[in-house]
């Protein structure tokens, strides 16, 4: 048992994550070809616009559709459908918590690939200053609010109907994910109405920004993702959890250094054991980079899955070890 | 009848105490340490036995304490004077209704000890290297004022003016300060009172570091100095408990410890 635990805690998380992400990427982007269908309530960016290959649909698409129903319908019988959809979404979410972001989300995976491309080119990453961080981190809540209010406004005939899925319009996933199945049709500007012109143009601007941003900044988009905000609102009862034992923390900041999302609390907070913050993507890099035994851990339904250990840390950080020089 | 002895080899005096099987104090003896303290310690110990008619073989266990404890090879065990002092004060303090804080001013150090109800040390503080606030400080002052150490108490209460302030905490600098004050024509009484308050202030600061609780037990040679006691009570703002023979508390504690250690084994 202890051996198994040591093996898990000593895992090369980078490699493990790469393969798991690849698996989920294939499942969600090409799963459609293999008759995979996980439904339309997935708490991750399995883009619905990827008609042919999708293995399930991102919940934000049906959510916006549902909310755009006329108020009479929405606040009548169809309201139950919305609630039901939300429950399905929540159930999916509870399993992996924000692990959906760090391990499953195809758009996140694409960003990680872009990051590794940059690393190979030897270009360093950018970080926000703390001031920028504090301001930018609010954007995702704004997007979430708009994503809910705009379709509601349409349902109440207050806004034009062709804004039906406002977030999808500007989501880079809509442009990028279908490309993986050879569908480039989203890379267009729709001049059919003023609204669509503006929204599709915005979408392409965001896509350009996404590609550029993700190159310089690790997990650039996740910072603004309204799905992430929605996740956080539900994260309390989720099964997969990130915990911190503040007493064991030396505040060495190693976890903060490697955090793609630049979450300071992971290093500085020593009182609250429930360390997961709204920006967290549960990639568990922090756990892998913590040299203090048991200071950080990921638990599933109370069972520890993966925790920080000294040996694991040493093994993982042994990148620069020159075997010829020290054949130990 | 078995007896147990404690010998406290301090920097200025050697104190010996003997207790009987029931832990009752049989007798104590005090002698100056001198230069060859091992010889002096043996003499003091033997004199004490002779005084009470105890044969050497009847003493089952000897515990040494004080600075010279390691060198007194005749002892069965040695214990630090802080622990010994704590036990002695705890035992002796029962007569006063129990004590929790001990202030000890010795020849070259001063200590404040906090103990629990069983005489276990829970916290203690000691002056650092410097001799300020110790018996040595009083010695130096008395010599400068050309009065006997025993007279200090009388001088303390003899003055008409307010006690002078002695600023120097260092024994060496205090010496010149005292000479300066004498030169200015201040009375010895005021100076003595000033010295007492100076020591009292330092001692209280030390005691506050360990925390002052319940009755405060004051022992060590300087506890015989009524003036110092008065000054200390003034600074502390509470009464002090002073044993009849304040010098021998530590030796008594060592003897008590010798008994319990012997009985434990």
């Amino acid at each position, binding site marked *: 048992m202890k051996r198994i635990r040591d093996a898990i805690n000593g895992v090369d998380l980078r490699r493990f994550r790469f393969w798991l992400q690849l698996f989920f990427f294939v499942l969600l982007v090409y799963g459609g070809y293999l008759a995979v269908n996980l439904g339309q309530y997935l708490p991750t960016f399995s883009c619905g616009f990827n008609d042919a290959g999708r293995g399930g649909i991102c919940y934000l698409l049906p959510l916006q559709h549902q909310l755009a129903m006329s108020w009479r319908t929405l606040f009548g019988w169809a309201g139950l459908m919305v609630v039901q959809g939300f429950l399905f979404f929540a159930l999916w979410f509870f399993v992996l918590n924000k692990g959906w972001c760090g391990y499953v989300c195809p758009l996140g995976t694409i960003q990680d690939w872009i990051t590794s491309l940059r690393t190979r080119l030897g270009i360093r990453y950018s970080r926000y200053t703390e001031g920028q961080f504090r301001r930018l981190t609010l954007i995702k809540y704004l997007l979430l609010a708009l994503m809910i209010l705009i379709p509601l406004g349409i349902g109440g005939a207050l806004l034009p109907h062709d804004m039906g899925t406002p977030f999808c319009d500007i989501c880079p996933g809509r442009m990028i994910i279908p490309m993986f199945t050879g569908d480039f049709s989203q890379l267009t500007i729709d001049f059919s109405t003023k609204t669509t012109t503006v929204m599709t143009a915005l979408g392409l601007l965001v896509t350009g920004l996404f590609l550029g941003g993700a190159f310089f900044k690790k997990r650039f988009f996740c910072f603004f993702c309204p799905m992430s905000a929605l996740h956080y609102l539900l994260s309390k009862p989720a099964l997969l959890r990130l915990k911190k034992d503040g007493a064991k923390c030396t*505040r060495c900041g190693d976890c903060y250094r490697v955090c793609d999302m630049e979450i300071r609390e992971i290093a500085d907070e020593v009182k609250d054991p429930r360390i997961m913050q709204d920006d967290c993507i549960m990639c568990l890099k922090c756990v892998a980079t913590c040299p203090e035994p048991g200071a950080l851990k990921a638990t599933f339904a109370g069972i520890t899955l993966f925790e920080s250990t000294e040996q694991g*840390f040493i093994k993982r950080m042994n*990148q*620069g*070890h020159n075997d010829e020089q020290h054949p130990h | 009848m078995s007896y147990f002895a404690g010998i406290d080899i301090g920097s200025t005096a050697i104190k010996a105490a003997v207790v009987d099987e029931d832990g009752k104090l049989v007798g104590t003896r005090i002698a100056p340490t001198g230069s060859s303290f091992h010889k002096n310690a043996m003499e003091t110990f033997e004199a004490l036995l002779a005084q009470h008619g105890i044969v050497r073989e009847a003493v089952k266990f000897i515990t040494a304490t004080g600075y010279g404890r390691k060198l007194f090879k005749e002892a069965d065990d040695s214990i*630090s004077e802080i622990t010994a002092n704590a036990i002695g004060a705890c035992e002796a303090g029962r007569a006063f209704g129990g004590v929790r804080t001990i202030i000890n001013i010795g020849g070259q150090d001063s200590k404040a000890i906090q103990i629990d109800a069983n005489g276990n040390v829970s916290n203690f503080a000691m002056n*650092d*290297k410097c001799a300020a606030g110790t018996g040595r400080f009083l010695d130096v002052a008395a010599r400068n004022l050309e009065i006997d150490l025993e007279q200090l108490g009388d001088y303390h209460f003899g003055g008409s003016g307010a006690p002078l302030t002695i600023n120097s905490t260092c024994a060496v600098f205090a010496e010149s300060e005292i000479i300066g004050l004498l030169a200015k024509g201040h009375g010895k009484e005021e100076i003595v009172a000033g010295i007492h308050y100076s020591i009292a202030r330092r001692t209280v600061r030390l005691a506050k570091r360990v925390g002052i609780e319940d009755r405060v037990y004051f022992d060590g040679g300087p506890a015989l100095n009524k003036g110092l006691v008065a000054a200390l009570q003034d600074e502390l703002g509470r009464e002090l408990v002073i044993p009849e023979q304040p010098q021998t508390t530590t030796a008594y504690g060592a003897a008590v410890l010798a008994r319990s250690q012997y009985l434990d084994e």
Partner: protein
Amino acid sequence: MNSTPTDAAAPAYNRSRQAREAETLLDRIEDDFPDNPQAMRYFYDLFRNVYCHGEPVRHQGTLVGTTCIHAPEELIYAFGATPVRLCNGSYHYDQIGADFMPAKSCPLVKATLGSLHAKAAVPNTQSLELIVNPTTCDQKTKASAMMEAMGYKVHDLELPPAKESEEARLYWQRSVRSFALRLRELTGRKLTRNNLKAAMARTARAQAAFRTLHQLRKSAPALFLGKDAFLVTNAYFFDDIDRWTEAVEQLNAELRSRQTEGFQAAQKRAPRILFTGSPPIFPNLKLPLLIEEAGGVVVADETCSANRMLYDMTAVDEWLLNDMVDGLADRYLKPCTCPIFTRNDDRQRRLLQLAADFNVDGVVYQAFAGCQVYEMEYRSIADVLAAQGIPMLYVETDYSPDDMGQLSTRIEAFLESLKTRKRNKQ
């Protein structure tokens, strides 16, 4: 310029005062205790060679002196140079250094200055080409100019007085980067990814060995004594890093076999002591030795001559120079529990955790007379420990041997009270 010693004639080290000081202490460490681990032989011999026989410090390339743990040694190694830590523990050099500093100042800084000023000093660092002086406490900061006046090249490695803020972190990262530039200038080499990676691996291996040793000290009853542990970490100051690591790995292996055999290096009841405060640096191992001579055992420490120097390890996300250097900078700043920083809650938490992990009975807090920052932190540490019911002994001392008697009384009384507590608990 009178100080950079050039006399080629080997001085009679074994008759010099500092050699005698070292010799006496080593004899005490070796002979007064039974059951020293076999693997400690390496360290005893090393100290005898370096301190008593004046064997020059082994080094490859340029020898760069450091005066504090904040100087990133990996960078020095990456430039093909060798770091040597100059912090000195000798009373002899303390007295020489007293000429440079006010009377009430830190003996460590005085001794360091004294050894730099002295001719034929031990450890023998005659070919020192640069001294990196991190601006930690006031006394070290001011020592820069004095070292320069002695004719040494000094690099002031600017350290911020706080470590929480983003500004401090960036400031420090920038300091470390300029230090790398200075090293490039000094060595004429270029910093490459592979060199730095290899340098970091070397240090990481040493740290891993240290951590194993550290964890072995959790074992109760103790497997070996704190005086040996301090000797091991003190050797890291000047020993060849790979040789040192191998020696520690051997020691670890021996201790592991001791563990399986159920060996006890101290009595079962021996109070387990956590040592904190001003660093014991050879030959000033006065306090740890007194503790262990009085029957205690130092099982853990929180000092910059041991744990704080080696415990915290560097993490890197992307093995690019930029990230590696920043990672190094972070490792030397963020986890540091030195009292020079504005807040000390990290130190409080670290002490509590060490006390819990190592099943500690009491804490001994050494403050060098004149080391104000430790003196000032005394109260807050005492309060935190008292709140957790951990007894602490605060000892203010220096390098002089004249307070040994007084100290031993206090330490014995402290250990006696710990033993009583332990008995009462059972």
